[in-house]
């Protein structure tokens, strides 16, 4: 192994792999309520994992995955035509401007994004009169879910669009033209040529968007208003509110296993390696 790999390997080993191993051990430690973390040499136990079968925690996982999956899918449905439009319809100048705007949205601070959405659509936002007119409250559960979804989408749309540009570009437009010249209407032509050819790109984009969403932290914390928690928020609360490190570690381990499984399944579906090279 070349020497040039050493610094990066050291960083990865000492600051990621070793701490993850420590986290795994911590997740089996016995926790005494009131203490900060587990005691040194505390006995090993499975109690931290058994506690996760509690319906509240299971519900937390289900909620996180449900909102993330829906938001990522909506993001794909919006981003795919947007990417196509940028690649096939726009002039060179507006293509560059559009890509620049999307990259700016990616680099924009997550806090700025969530604050802006809270300000625009939140409980004090400008949709409030509209909601009132329909007899809905901006504090109702479904609306807060939408708000968290909107927070995710504000990042997912630019991310998915930029990722899909390459996919759309590599699909030969002459295939859809050929289908049309054989008598298929344009929408059928795209549905049966363009879309299937974009499948690996779509699955890959879904995977990246989905892993981003399920590990979201700031978005549910601010927009969820304490009513919606994601797994990340619960891990943080275990750490900061009750200092129950073993339980936080157990949730982290399960979260990691579940998201790695999801990544594995999706990349198998896409027929590509698990991590982009």
């Amino acid at each position, binding site marked *: 192994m070349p020497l040039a790999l050493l610094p990066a390997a050291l960083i990865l080993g000492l600051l990621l792999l070793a701490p993850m191993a420590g986290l795994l051990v911590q997740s089996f430690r016995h926790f005494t309520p009131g203490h900060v973390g587990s005691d040194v040499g505390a006995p090993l136990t499975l109690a931290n994992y058994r506690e996760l079968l509690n319906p509240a925690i299971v519900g937390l996982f289900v909620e996180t995955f449900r909102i993330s999956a829906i938001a990522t899918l909506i993001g794909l449905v*919006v981003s795919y035509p947007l990417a196509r439009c940028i690649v096939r319809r726009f002039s060179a100048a507006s293509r560059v401007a559009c890509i620049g705007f999307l990259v700016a949205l990616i680099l924009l601070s997550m806090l700025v994004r969530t604050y802006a959405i809270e300000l625009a659509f939140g409980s004090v936002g400008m949709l409030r009169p509209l909601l009132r007119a329909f007899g809905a409250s901006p504090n109702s559960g479904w609306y807060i879910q939408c708000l968290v979804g909107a927070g995710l989408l504000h990042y997912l749309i630019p991310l998915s669009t930029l990722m899909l540009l390459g996919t759309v570009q590599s699909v030969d437009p002459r295939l859809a033209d050929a289908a049309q010249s054989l008598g298929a209407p344009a929408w059928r032509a795209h549905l049966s040529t363009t879309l299937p050819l974009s499948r690996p790109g779509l699955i890959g984009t879904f995977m990246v968007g989905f892993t981003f969403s399920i590990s979201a932290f700031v978005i549910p914390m601010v927009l969820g208003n304490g009513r919606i928690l994601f797994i990340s928020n619960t891990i943080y609360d275990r750490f900061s509110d009750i200092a129950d490190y073993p339980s936080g570690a157990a949730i982290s381990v399960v979260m990691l296993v579940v*998201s790695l499984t999801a990544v594995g399944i999706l990349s198998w579906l896409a027929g590509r390696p698990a*991590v982009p090279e």
Partner: protein
Amino acid sequence: MTAAARGRVGDDIARTGVAAVLIVAAIFLLVPLLVTILMAFDSRSYLGPLPPPGFSLRWFVACFSRQTLAVGLRTSLALGILATAISTSAGTAAAIALERGTFPGRTILSALFLSPLIVPPVVIGFALLLALSQAGILNGFVRLLCGHVVITLPYTIRAVSASLAGRDASLTEAALGLGASERQALWTITVPLARTGIMIGAIFAFAVSFDDVSVASFLTDPTTYTLPVALLSAMRANFDLTIAAAAVLLMVATVILIFILDRAVGFDRLVGQGMFRT
């Protein structure tokens, strides 16, 4: 109605539907930012409905006189610059070695190097907190630096790898064939090829570090905290418009970063260079 006519109606519906989706998406992406900019200049002393009756700079003044934000900004800048420097050097060296090397385990290693991207940042922060406490490292800044080096490293490795992919090997071979030494080939072929990737990686690394909350939340101490952590606690304490002013300033910072990126690389190359790939 004939099949062809039905097809045309279908096309019209599809085209209108797609146009509607794109317009709604553009509004959705832009409106929150515009609202924030508008509200940041609100002259009212409370958070009222749109539009503001008058404009003032009071919230910007309030933002600049907030002690915690100034402290956070200073930490974030120092942290961002240091973390970017470390991960860009380590990442560039690793990416070049991976790209030029032919040793066993190369693919596994490069997958491993990108793995911090799929580990949830909260898990990285929590694991690091436990490990660093156990190792007796209690200095807030050192802890934050450790966390930010880990989360920024994959961006620099990926950007540099992408800028070399497929182009370096044949050019290096040509240089060696023409009598250059290994060292000469490295400095005259590989490093110049990698330059765009290094720039892109460094800019993304800085942006990631400057924006991180999930990892930093675990690693701060009462006197060392980053700007996003300070902003988040200000946001949760009272929802006033000082944050809107800070948000506008951060938007300006993003725009500046985007101009640098465009000047240094160009957006077309950025997409082509594989920063956004599946």
